[in-house]
């Protein structure tokens, strides 16, 4: 919250007033989240689960949200869709194509949800009704949202199944979800999400339940969709390897706050926040040949015992006295990066690269 304003890192892209029409090409970012706070009712009272998150997603951009359980990453996505659990209180602003979503009523939200913003969840079987044929599920929302006839909706469904490379789409439409493998089901779920040609796809752990071979196919698919259709994607995952391969920019969340953000190569290539650094060192794929994985000690905090000061301080080997009491503010760094760490133990090398110390 303290630094919510300076987080949107592209200069000169102000709020896009006047682009309220749903089909209007987005001038500025497709999605702008500013100073988002979400408080949940728990047994012990109201707890702030998301605290001052800000980011934006451009057209055809893939933004990665990295975080572990309890980081607030899924709540952030749900707030865009107006799907927060009952009793949740929100603050800040979530603008989709310039239109504020947090204050929409249910009818207005229905216009956006599923039509302009689509959700792909971790478990494709939750997105598909087990008793209905794929055709029913893939045409229903197209007819409802776009007013298509049955034949038009069916043609759209075939087109979308082809786009996600389902072999023999006609046969797939006649089948039930259980007749497909997990990877195929996730493709069908993505095809459903695409059917209304949304401007934004929210993909919450879209490949976590899948094998690496299938995961590679889904990641390539998302990348192709943004290139060919200009779809923007917000991909939420704890797998930095996944983000590294598809995301243009990433935003690392910890304990409901932003720890670090910036271009993917910058953030993962030279992490500045001790948490990002720790995640990288704990990755088997990222550490050097023969080097052991170095896990971060401890567990992510739960909503009921969020530490004072920096939420990461109890697990941080660089923590100082100040970290225990003062919430670090999110500072803007050169190159469109941001960092919320007052110690900044990995800062110097990067500053040098940016030309502040070395010629």
């Amino acid at each position, binding site marked *: 919250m303290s630094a919510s304003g300076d987080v949107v890192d592209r200069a000169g892209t102000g709020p896009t007033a006047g682009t309220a029409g749903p089909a209007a090409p987005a001038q500025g970012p497709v999605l702008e989240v500013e100073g988002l706070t979400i408080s949940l009712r728990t047994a012990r009272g109201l707890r702030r689960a998301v605290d001052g998150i800000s980011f934006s997603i451009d057209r055809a951009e893939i933004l990665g949200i990295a975080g572990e359980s309890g980081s607030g990453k899924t709540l952030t996505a749900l707030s865009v869709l107006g799907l927060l659990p009952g009793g949740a209180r929100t603050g800040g602003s979530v603008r989709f194509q310039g239109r504020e979503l947090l204050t929409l009523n249910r009818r207005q939200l229905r216009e956006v949800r599923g039509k302009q913003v689509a959700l792909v969840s971790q478990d494709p079987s939750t997105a598909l009704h087990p008793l209905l044929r794929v055709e029913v599920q893939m045409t229903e929302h197209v007819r409802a949202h776009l007013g298509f006839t049955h034949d038009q909706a069916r043609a759209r469904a075939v087109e979308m199944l082809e786009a996600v490379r389902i072999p023999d789409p006609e046969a797939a439409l006649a089948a039930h979800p259980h007749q497909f493998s997990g990877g195929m089901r996730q493709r069908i779920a993505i095809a459903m999400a695409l059917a209304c040609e949304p401007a934004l796809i929210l993909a919450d752990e879209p490949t976590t339940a899948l094998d690496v071979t299938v995961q590679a196919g889904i990641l390539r698919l998302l990348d192709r969709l943004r290139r060919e259709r200009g779809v923007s994607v917000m991909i939420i995952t704890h797998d930095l390897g996944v983000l*590294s391969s598809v995301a243009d920019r990433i935003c690392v969340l910890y304990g409901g706050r932003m720890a670090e953000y910036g271009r993917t190569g910058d953030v993962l290539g030279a992490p500045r926040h001790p948490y990002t650094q720790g995640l990288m060192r704990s990755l088997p794929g990222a550490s050097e040949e023969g080097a052991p994985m170095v896990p971060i000690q401890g567990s992510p905090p739960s909503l009921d015992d969020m530490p004072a000061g920096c939420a990461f301080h109890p697990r941080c080997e660089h923590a100082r006295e100040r970290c225990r009491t003062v919430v670090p503010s999110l500072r803007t760094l050169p190159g469109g990066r941001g960092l919320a760490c007052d110690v900044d133990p990995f800062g110097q090398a990067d500053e040098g690269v940016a030309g502040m110390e070395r010629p």
Partner: protein
Amino acid sequence: MSGDRRAVPPAVPGAPLLEVEAIDVSYARHGHSPVRAVTGASLTVGPGEVVGLVGESGCGKSTLGRAAVGLVAPSAGQVRYRGRPVEVLARGARPRWLRSLQMVFQDPYASLNPRRRVGRQIADAAALGAGAALDGKASSDRVGELLDRVGLSPGVAQRYPHEFSGGQCQRIAIARALAAQPDCIVADEPISALDASAQAQIANLLAGIAAQSGLGMLFISHDLSVVRKIADRTVVMYFGRVVESGPTAPVWARPAHPYTRALINAVPRAGAGGTLPAELPGDVPDPARPPAGCRFHPRCPEVMDSCRTTDPPGVDIAPGWQSVCLRAQPLPATTTGAGEVPGAAEVAGRPEA
């Protein structure tokens, strides 16, 4: 219980700790012919050795793991523990000599009783491991010691499973397995349900236990990069068969089977700088209708005509390293055993990050 089920038979000298020899496992299906989930699979686990078993879902790796501890019965072949055939779990108690062969499951919330304090659950296993009920002090000391070994404070014994995170629950499940004083642990996807930072913690914990106590470990995972870090040997399964097995480092550097190569190239790497992982098109075939010839041929990028008809034999690439592929060639003796394998990066098809 008959007396001989309680007796601990002497280990057969010279036998590996755990030996899976050419097993088939079939599942009966109502109204259909049975499905062979595992076909002629073999592997061994020695003391202090971590063997990683990898493959896509549905390849039979979990079934193989379950057969290895006697949870399912092989329809052909044999599983031996310390040289003696593993008895399949029946309605009676598991024979005591098999108690030192333990299993850790994927979902720690499902494998722990939600309504019992974790200390009690570990104490039960400790009493079984000791062969007699422990008195209060001895029991709580042992529980404290086990919790300490898995990196938890002994004070947490009074809590219930829901009070812990996934990673902590998996530590408790491991403590419970260790309470039975195992010589060998089969861990089925022990880290895939956990958060990023907990995955490395648990993988390191299991590898550390194997190294420190000379315990053999069969580590089943679909996450190749973790297996690469902690396994001494890697076994790759595809569609019920072991297609490649060998020492981890050379298998990674120079995978001999096209499927192993495809798996390795599909792993996304953090810091790879925007490189999309390589796709392996197609799905695992319908288990009721296995393809003729090599089972991988419909998806294999290097398929030859003979692959469609000939079931490939295992080829010894180097001592202890086998690939089941018609294209597989033994390595010349000069390169085997050397730490570095020439051309490794090209074969892996991807520059190192």
